[in-house]
């Protein structure tokens, strides 16, 4: 299946999209999602360990991702 992953700021620019459909086998981990994204055009611009959020909270690489979760890649934040 494909998991929609939300993109923002420089990552949205890198992929040329606000959302990218990532091919993964469920259930999987955050690290699996990032790995799959590296094969998508633009994925080569990702840093070694991009931050990922699952359901609006930062998630570690070994965190489980299930169908229906809202997954987002978080570029280095610069609020304030």
């Amino acid at each position: 299946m494909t998991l929609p992953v939300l993109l923002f700021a420089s990552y949205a620019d890198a992929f040329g999209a606000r959302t990218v459909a990532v091919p993964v086998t469920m259930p999987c981990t955050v690290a699996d999602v990032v790995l799959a994204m590296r094969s998508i055009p633009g994925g080569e611009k990702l840093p070694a360990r991009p931050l990922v959020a699952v359901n609006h909270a930062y998630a570690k690489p070994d965190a489980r991702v299930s169908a229906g979760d809202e997954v987002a890649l978080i570029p280095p934040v610069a609020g304030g």
Partner: protein
Amino acid sequence: MTGQPATLPLVAITHEPIDVAALIAAVSHARVGAISTFLGTVREVNDHRPVTGIDYEGYEPMAVREMQGIADELVEEWPGLRIAMIHRLGTLQVGDVSVAIACAHARRAPSADAMRRAIESLKARVPIWKREHYVDGEWTWVDPTNSAAPMASQS
């Protein structure tokens, strides 16, 4: 909001100019002796480059959740703390207020310490990004982890 003037902690994302007076009013209370407020404003120069404006982008539901988490942590550390924090998104001009934080407490030390901690935490973990536009037409997504060589830059 539940009928009171303001439910605290008050955290919000807005696309409109920030009403600083309303934020201060929200944390004011007869038991408060000190109100420390932080305002972030758009500077005309950053890293020696003239800035014409900034686009702020945010992952809004997560930004609100992280701000709420910061506020809850601060109230846990300083019981009685009354805190309001709001971040503006969209296109801002030089001088515009991008973020406002008000921390009220019976005593000044917790008020000031919480205010400082709030802005540091916000900058460290709230998912908001800014694209600076320069006089020469170039723009950059600001990357505080690598300010010497911004990750993405194009004309």
